[in-house]
């Protein structure tokens, strides 16, 4: 069996026992079997017919009745459909109803935003109302559209969070809503909520979302990090207390 050379002419499904007996020796067609060479002129004619003058037939070629191929009735049918829709919508407009599917934003707002729609940034807050943001600029760094601007403030009297944003603004005329800022944030300080920013304006400079607006979201039960942090108030300059049970991971809190 192992010596058998399988060629394309060998039957693939031969049973192992009968293989030796039924083996077909592969034979190449002998030169005498080949068709007689076509005369040059005739070959040219064949190619000519095949390439240019035989129309290719497609398996999905449209089959149309004579009625459809006579063109005009089908055109009239199409025109009847479009005119019907036009008249229906026009009748709606004339009788004071809306004849369009368009939501006329911002005068109209649609109520059927998807439950997973995340259209607006918010900043989470500590129980005292200060932003949980530590102004580390990670979100501004990762932002592909470069729309986040953070101005850092420093407070020596709050050793747990010496840095906090004084100004945190997002340019919504350029934001691509990719959510990378949320993923980059180490503090869960920025999130996106199921809302839309009401920033309709003729001027792109009015499309900045300010920190005041982002700090309006304040559910008391959903604050991720406790404050003040567990373990008492740290003293400025004291060594950071390591929690051995957590594998020596330090926290900025």
């Amino acid at each position: 069996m192992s010596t058998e050379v399988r060629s394309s002419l060998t039957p693939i499904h031969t049973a192992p026992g009968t293989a030796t007996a039924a083996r077909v020796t592969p034979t190449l067609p002998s030169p005498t079997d080949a068709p007689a060479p076509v005369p040059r002129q005739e070959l040219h004619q064949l190619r000519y017919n095949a390439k240019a003058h035989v129309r290719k037939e497609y398996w999905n070629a449209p089959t149309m009745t004579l009625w459809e191929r006579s063109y005009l009735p089908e055109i009239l049918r199409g025109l009847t459909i479009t005119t019907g829709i036009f008249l229906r919508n026009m009748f709606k407009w004339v009788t004071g109803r809306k004849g369009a599917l368009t939501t006329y934003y911002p005068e109209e707002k649609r109520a059927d935003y998807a439950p997973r729609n995340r259209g607006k940034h918010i900043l989470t807050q500590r129980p005292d109302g200060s932003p949980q943001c530590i102004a580390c600029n990670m979100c501004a760094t990762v932002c592909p559209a470069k729309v986040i601007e953070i101005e850092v403030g420093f407070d020596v009297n709050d050793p747990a969070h010496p840095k906090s944003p004084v100004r945190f603004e997002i340019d919504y005329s350029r934001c691509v809503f990719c959510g990378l800022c949320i993923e980059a944030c180490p503090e869960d300080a920025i999130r996106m909520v199921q809302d839309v920013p009401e920033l309709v304006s003729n001027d792109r400079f009015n499309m900045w979302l300010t920190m005041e607006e982002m700090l309006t979201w304040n559910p008391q039960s959903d604050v991720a990090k406790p404050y003040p942090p567990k373990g008492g108030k740290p003293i400025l300059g004291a060594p950071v207390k390591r929690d051995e049970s957590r594998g020596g991971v330090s926290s900025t809190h």
Partner: protein
Amino acid sequence: MLPDLSITLVFIAGSIGLLMGFGGLLTWVERKQAAVMSDRIGANRAYIRIPFTKIELVWLGLFHGMADGLKMLLKEDFKPRTYDQLAYTLAPYVVFAPVLLVFAVIPFGGMIDPGKIFPALSGFFEGRTYPMQVANLSAGILVVFAFSGLTILGTMLAGWSSDNKFSLLGGLRAGSQMISYELVMGLTVMGLILVFGTVDLRDMVNQQSGLIGGFLPAWGLFYQPLAAILFLTAAIAENKRIPFDLPEAESELVAGYYTEYSAMKMGLFMFAEFIEIAIVAALFTTLFLGGYNLPYMNDAGFTLPGGNTIAISHGFVVLLQLGTFLAKIFALCVFQIQIRWSLPRFRYDQMLSFAWKLLLPITLVNLAITAVVVWIKDGAR
């Protein structure tokens, strides 16, 4: 001399104003009609604020045309580095001017007696009457074809001189398409010329205010129904609008022969297209729909099928004729826009074989039958 000149100037100004108005209005009609028939609202944000107030006039987006025109006027006039700057600059005007000239021979009303309408001017006009037409030429329909044939030159000039492959292809397509359909258009009208025995458009309209068989208005549509359909088809193709917009097919040729044009030169091409919709409608009205007359109506008043006549005053007749003409044109423009937004585009070979293998033979058969019927009616001499 002076009364003739003044009335002609008034007609010229009125015609150009009418065409420009139609061109501007049709851009709005096209957008709104397309929007309504596809369940949309359409452009409606542009407004005019009354100075020193907060009142913003929107008027269903009518001012979008003005905003577009202003944008085109103020845009940079881009010039490609072409070897034929003269032809490039000339092409939009060669397209635009004949479109306006065609309207000169189209009658938009019957005879007007200005002295009767404005009694204060009766001394100035001395009872003279004028046909409501810029140029009352007996060559009529021939002038129409002579001028509308010039448009082909403009499109081909634009396609050639832009030095751009897309423009060149668009110009080639425009040339072959317009020449093909010009032929069909001319031959469809031949049947009407046989029926009415004249090429004078005013004479044709006057003959159409008669009756066929005592009750049917003698419109060209009832004499030549097949020619009417063929004429409208060929005219839409001549105007290069969907389903015949091969020369400027966006998905194939960017913008076709005016790819390299910007600002108001491009605006002229667009404007010429919209005015030509109105021109096609006016021609169809004049040739097939009884022109400026309502059914059973002539310059004196109504002649009803029973033989009763209703005489109406001259001023009212003039107003009625103008109104009828405008209403017919507008309805046909709306119909053309409806076609444009309903049908898909032809393939290029389909479009040419449609003209040469289908429309032309039908037109010739129609013409032959018409000729035989007219010959028999004239006594088979």
